[in-house]
């Protein structure tokens, strides 16, 4: 029994040789006239919806750049290589190492979930290949002092609310607040930042609870929150939980002066679609919306919608802007090696649809762009910028009308 099993094992090990060796050969042969960029996104599994949107946006930007002749650098053509991380971190690590060792990419990009982004960042840093994060928002990704990790189009989770605080001081002036958030990395980081800021400003937090994403019934939690009667509610939720929460607030006839979402779910087209008119007057912080003032933003939105027949949200915009940052850095790089690209990324100063992007060291962050954040509000079915005032597209509604007065 043992004999045959060990033979089997040996055969399999030989198989390993063939399979992995095979992978290597196929990609090495075409290396001559190309400079490769690895992009790791969740293309299958539960986060595939966002991964696909980002992949499409990369492709859209790439095609535009190609038409403008900006995808060839010094006779070499930029080539995007997409890898799937299946939203699993050990797969993300495999993908990163395959791209770096096997395909010899000049730099990495991608990273949707915070956990996968952390793992990719770790691999990029140890192997000395620049990694430009698209979405992964956990604070500590750019707080390790890692020189090879850059984050441009994405803000650290705790900075999503910058614009909101300005508006809080000038308009909302709440005395009490309630916080509800999903118990993910993004949710807990955002809630923590909000909590700290509240304490600093003397806002009394009367309700503070996390939940597990995917619940059918939020009513027990919401009814409990209603009992504490907060001036405002700050909620960090995934897209469908967001819709469920506002719908059920309406069902419970639970009124607050303003309901503020912490980015993520509350700004997406699906949120509006699923929450229906319960989404009216819901405010949210965000990094981007289609009618923001930056050049090309609206264009991107219409082009994407035309090509893929679906509305993109800020995740897509992050990927689109990232592609432009990459192409720009490639054009300026003195040599197309990881070190050369790292240097040229560091010197980036580019206007994108997400606003100007620069990689700076500040507040304990390394190579982190200072994000532009906005407060938006759903008004008559459209998402409008309401703060900062100088870029607003509509006047805010505050306090919002009660459910039975609408």
């Amino acid at each position, binding site marked *: 029994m043992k004999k045959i099993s060990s033979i089997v094992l040996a055969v399999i090990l030989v198989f390993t040789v063939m399979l992995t060796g095979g992978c290597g050969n196929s990609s090495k042969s075409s290396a001559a006239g190309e400079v490769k960029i690895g992009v790791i996104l969740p293309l*299958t*599994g*539960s*986060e*595939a*919806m966002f991964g*696909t949107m980002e992949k499409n946006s990369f492709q859209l930007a790439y095609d535009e750049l190609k038409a403008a002749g900006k995808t060839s650098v010094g006779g070499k053509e930029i080539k995007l290589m997409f890898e799937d991380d299946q939203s699993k971190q050990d797969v993300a690590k495999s993908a990163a190492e395959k791209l770096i060792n096997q395909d010899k990419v000049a730099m990495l990009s991608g990273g949707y979930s915070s956990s996968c982004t952390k793992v990719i960042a770790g691999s990029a840093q140890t192997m000395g290949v620049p990694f430009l994060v698209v979405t992964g928002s956990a604070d500590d990704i750019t707080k390790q002092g890692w020189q090879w990790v850059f984050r441009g189009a994405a803000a650290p989770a705790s900075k999503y609310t910058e614009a909101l605080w300005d508006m809080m001081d000038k308009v909302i002036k709440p005395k009490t607040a309630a916080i*509800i958030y999903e*118990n993910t990395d993004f949710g807990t980081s955002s809630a923590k930042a909000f909590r700290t800021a509240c304490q600093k400003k003397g806002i009394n937090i009367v309700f503070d*609870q*996390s*939940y*597990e994403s*995917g*619940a*059918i*019934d*939020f*009513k*027990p*939690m919401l*009814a*409990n929150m209603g*009992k504490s009667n907060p001036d405002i509610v700050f909620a960090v939720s995934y*897209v*469908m939980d967001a*819709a*469920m929460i506002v*719908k059920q607030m*309406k*069902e*419970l*006839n639970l009124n607050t002066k303003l309901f503020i979402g912490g980015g993520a779910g509350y700004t997406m087209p*699906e949120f509006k*679609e*699923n929450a*229906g008119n*319960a989404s009216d007057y819901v405010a949210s912080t965000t990094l981007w919306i289609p009618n923001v003032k930056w050049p090309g933003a609206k264009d991107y939105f219409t082009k994407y919608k035309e090509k893929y027949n*679906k509305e993109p949200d800020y995740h897509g915009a992050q990927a689109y802007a990232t592609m432009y940052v990459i192409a720009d850095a490639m054009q300026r790089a003195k040599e197309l090696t990881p070190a050369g690209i790292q240097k040229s990324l560091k010197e980036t100063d580019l206007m994108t649809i997400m606003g100007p992007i620069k990689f700076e060291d500040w507040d304990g962050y390394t190579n982190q762009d200072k994000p532009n954040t906005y407060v938006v509000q759903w008004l008559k079915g459209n998402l409008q910028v309401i703060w900062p005032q100088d870029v607003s597209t509509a006047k805010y509604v505050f306090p919002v009308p009660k459910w039975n007065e609408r």
Partner: protein
Amino acid sequence: MHLLGQTLISGFLLGGMYALIAIGMTLIMGVMKIVNLAHGALVMVGMYVTYICFVLWHINPYAGMFISMLLLFVLGSLIQRYMINRLVEVDSILPENQVLLTVGISLVLTEVIRFIFKSDYLSVSTGFSGKTVFLGKMSVSVPMTIGFVIAMVFTYLLHLFLNRTDLGMTIRATAQDRDAAVYMGVNVSRVTMITFGLGSAFAAAGGSLLLPMFYLWPDIGHLFTAKAFIITILGGMGSTAGALLGGLTLGIAESLGATYISMGYKDVVGLVVFLLVLLFMPGGIKSLVKR
């Protein structure tokens, strides 16, 4: 006080719909003694069928539910006949490898659906999706109440079927003692096929009832698999009344947990109740009801 009322109402209504999903599983587990991890995926497929009916032909989800049940009955029977049944006949070291087959089936179903519909979130909104009635200060959701009532009717019908018809009694006989049933001339492979079909149909019904107030995406199945298991064990395998009580117990336990402990620990409450029942009341609630 009205907080307690609200919590109980929410838990009670939701529990009724959990029960309908779990009844499918309790049937399958009771008769075939297998752990079916594809149950949630079947719920999901059922929901998609109802969704397609709604979007393409504007069939109200409560009517689309019947189409979905029919289709899932066929799908379930086929899965049982051509996949799971193979393993029952083969001699293997661990009978639990059936479980793994169901994992494979659920992967395939999920990915096929993802292939067709992508990972997008879909939802069905009918005119009464967000309607509520207020009892004092407590809100009662209309679609939830409708769902609850339909779930109760189905449960009762199934109960009648199992107790009053020949086929139903054959199913129960197989559940009690498979070998004896074979000796009595029961065509066990036909009975298991029908049982799996019925279980899948009820899964589809439960999913369809949730559709007007919930949403839909390919990975939603996992949520239901876990709940259905807990309820099946709570109620005792193979018992419709047990599943009903189990569903209500779980719904209320979760709601109370969400209100009085924390929403994050809501599922822990359900699981702890589950473990306690498993350990101290191995027959489930059924063992209390039977007498």
